[in-house]
């Protein structure tokens, strides 16, 4: 295009203009596109455009055996793969009536909570990066690295663990792992204190988060937002409490909820959740029973009886639900995945209207989106 072809600016100034944030933009952490209609620096309308990384996980589920779909679930939200594996495995166990030994259940809870902490640490770093603070990201990754090392030692992988099996977990944990986790828990508490002094108390951060990006209960209800987003609106909704699964019923933990509904509330919910997860892990290690880690009644060729079965877990970003429909074949008839990020994103358009661009991006960061989780 040569300079002469450029349309000259019209005499009448346009009221708004369209700003394309993404699919490649530092603030969208992946290939999310926001079509922002801007009025100066104010967002008149922000329309999320997703689908750039759609991988047809649900359709893939209809084309492979029950066991073969398991690795897929870890790739939906790659930052919290354990919880996703858990939901799918538990759904199939419920459908096929497979029993899980208690030791395996405890291991599942411990590893899921470790994974939740690592996921929140990534969010913490990335969120601060959105707000222009670079250093906390690397501190958070330093801590996360310890979790990944621990999980790698038992699962063999650092991100897409694929550790749970129908009827248990594939490897038992050893004394090294237990010692490592205890060390990590002991070391994480002072680090959290450090984060609070460095970040939470910081006046610049408070100015950017307090009172910014209000998401109320009503909006959460309307769009089905879950996880830290709804807890940041003051609703203590957590699948681990309202529909306790695995051994969460035997463990003692609180659900942090802050009624302010602003970015700061969501921030504090997640930071508080790290503390709670540490508590859960400690209790899990204390109560860890001996015994096998795989159930005895797992059929070699899995054909769950025909029927419809759901299982929901509290993943790091909210309620993740797997619904499976079986027609008593080796291959699922339908696997439906209800992912939290899709619902959490859908309220963005309403919540961001009228905000300034940097605030809108802070709001986007506080939703903690993982783009593959939106597109599946």
């Amino acid at each position: 295009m040569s300079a002469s072809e450029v349309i000259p600016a019209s005499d009448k100034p346009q009221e708004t203009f369209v700003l394309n944030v993404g699919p490649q933009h530092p603030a969208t952490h992946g290939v999310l596109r926001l079509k922002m209609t801007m009025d100066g620096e104010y967002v008149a309308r922000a329309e999320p455009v997703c689908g750039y990384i759609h991988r047809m996980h649900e359709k893939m589920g209809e084309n492979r055996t029950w066991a073969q779909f398991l690795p897929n679930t870890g790739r939906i939200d790659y930052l919290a793969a354990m919880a996703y594996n858990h939901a799918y495995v538990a759904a199939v166990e419920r459908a096929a009536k497979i029993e899980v030994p208690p030791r395996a259940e405890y291991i599942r809870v411990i590893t899921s909570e470790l994974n939740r902490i690592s996921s929140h640490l990534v969010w913490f770093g990335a969120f601060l990066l959105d707000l222009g603070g670079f250093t906390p990201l690397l501190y958070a990754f330093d801590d996360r690295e310890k979790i990944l090392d621990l999980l790698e030692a038992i699962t063999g992988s650092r991100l897409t663990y694929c550790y749970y099996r129908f009827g248990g977990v594939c490897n038992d944990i050893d004394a090294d792992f237990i010692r490592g986790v205890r060390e990590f828990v002991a070391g994480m508490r002072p680090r959290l204190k450090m984060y609070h002094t460095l970040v939470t108390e910081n006046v610049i951060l408070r100015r950017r988060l307090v009172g910014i990006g209000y998401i109320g209960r009503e909006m959460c209800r309307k769009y089905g937002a879950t996880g830290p987003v709804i807890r940041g609106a003051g609703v203590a909704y957590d699948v681990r409490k309202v529909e306790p699964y695995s051994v969460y019923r035997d463990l003692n933990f609180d659900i942090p909820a802050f009624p302010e509904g602003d970015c700061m509330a969501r921030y504090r919910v997640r930071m508080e959740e790290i503390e709670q997860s540490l508590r859960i892990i400690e209790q899990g290690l204390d109560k860890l029973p001996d015994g096998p880690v795989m159930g005895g009644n797992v059929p070699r060729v899995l054909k769950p009886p025909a029927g419809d079965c759901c299982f929901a877990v509290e993943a790091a970003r909210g309620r993740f639900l797997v619904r499976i429909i079986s027609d008593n074949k080796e291959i699922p008839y339908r696997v439906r995945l209800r992912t939290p990020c899709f619902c959490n994103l859908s309220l963005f358009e309403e919540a961001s209207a009228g905000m300034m661009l940097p605030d809108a991006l802070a709001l986007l960061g506080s939703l903690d989106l993982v783009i593959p989780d939106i597109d599946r």
Partner: protein
Amino acid sequence: MDFPEPIRLLAFLLGMMAFVAVNAAYLVWAERKGAGRFQRRPGPTEVGWAGLLQPVADGIKLISKQVIVPPGADPILFRVAPLLVMAPAMMTLAVIPFSETLVGRDINVGLVFVFAFGAINVMAIMMGGWASRNKYAIISAARVVSQDVAYEIPMLLVVITLLMVTGTMNLNEIVQQQAGWFWHWNLFRLDVNPLMPVTFIIFFICMLAETNRAPFDMAEAESELVAGAFTEYAGMGFGVFFMAEYANIVVGCSLATVLFLGGWQSPFGVGSGVIWFLLKMYALVFTVIWVRWTFPRTQFYSLLNLSWKILIPISMVTLVLTCILLKLT
């Protein structure tokens, strides 16, 4: 050493250019090393010993890249902007006294000269942003202007306060007045203005804002505006902007050293010289880097609020206070 004035000035300008270029290049290195240390990693290590040749390698890379002028951009302004952002830094350093004799041009209105040229920097960024014909760049350009207007005022108020204390605009004389032990530095002249340290902090904050440094890097704001006014610049166009940022930090820190920290005066009254000037200046530069790697970015309106609601009132107070105290004594 009696050189004819034009030759002396020329030699000094050449020296100044070299100083600015080396500083800009190596402050990038220092910033990366420093950022690394703050984040518990080593920073550049591969090119040369401790990565010391990294700036050279980066320079070669940037120079060998094509300078792309986006279609629809204003080709002249687009090319002039990087030069215009670098030039004032070199000009202002010509009046900064590095030591008693090591000063390019000892002029009576040195302070005015510095501020006059300092303002060009912002205009150049705005030019670059405007000429790029990119929405992010234009948002950034608009931000830069309002930010600069907001921060020029408290900065000048602070400087006027100081001028009343010193009674001269000649930078060399200002330094000479601060001779002796460190409590003679303007920073500690509590007798004429008990709020002098506050004044210094205001000056420092304004300097951060004027040089577009974090936490006030509204112009670049990479997580919002990609790279702000520099989004469309490739190769050395970007490189010059990048270096100018560091050159301006050097200017700002030099000025702070001269005005508040006694310039080349030794803190113990003996052994004054250029070494003290450099020590103080680089300590300030380190603080600038340190601040950047500690804080998140401010939001744009709280940036303006900070200036209009906090900094300007406080600097007014110090101004009035100094007036009264000077009249009384």
